[in-house]
């Protein structure tokens, strides 16, 4: 079955994984400095996360951005909720909010 980047399919991804990173490239081979920063922040948190390489399909970026109502990549989802891009991820990591958000809802 092929993946068509529909809102339902995208929602299923963020529902299924507690942390999802939509990024350009992969955490091992990021293709954008901001995607790299987002991946590094999540790696620093130390909890496994799912990553989606949105460069694999030209439909991905417009579909994800329209679904999320967020115009840029990367995008980070914690427990199904968009928290923002790499700037917010870093800010929340430095303040401890990110770790708190990941661990607090996980135990529910």
């Amino acid at each position, binding site marked *: 079955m092929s993946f068509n980047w529909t809102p339902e399919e995208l929602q299923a991804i963020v529902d299924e994984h507690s942390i999802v990173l939509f990024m350009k490239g992969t955490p091992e081979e990021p293709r*954008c*400095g*901001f995607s*790299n*920063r987002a991946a*590094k*922040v999540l790696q*620093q948190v130390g909890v496994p996360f799912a990553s989606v390489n949105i460069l694999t399909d030209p439909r991905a970026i417009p579909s994800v951005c329209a679904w999320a109502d*967020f*115009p*840029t990549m990367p995008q980070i989802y914690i427990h199904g909720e*968009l*928290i*923002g891009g*790499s*700037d*917010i991820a*870093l*800010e*929340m*990591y*430095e303040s401890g909010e990110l770790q708190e958000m990941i661990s607090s809802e996980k135990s529910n």
Partner: protein
Amino acid sequence: MVTEQWVVDEVGKVVPSAIIEATDLHGTGDHFHVRVISQSYEGQRPLQRQRPILAHFKQYIVTNTVHALDLKCMTPDQETALGETKFDPHKGKETEFFGIHIRREKKE
């Protein structure tokens, strides 16, 4: 290609009371770090702070007039505590760092 002043003016349309500083990260007029300092951000989460600015810039992002907008939306108190926030995704090859306050030696 747009100028730092243009970015400041556009952000000012969204957050009129804010102190706004834009930095053209590469001199290419499309990657910007933007500091927005406003008392109105008190009590708002980072994504809520960014949403109105991103919604306004969406028209310029989809056309790739602006390729990257690294936003730092702060209250005056946070601005005092944080200091320098600039991040350039295409620099920092020797030391691997994903933020101004987090800098680590590159691990093999």
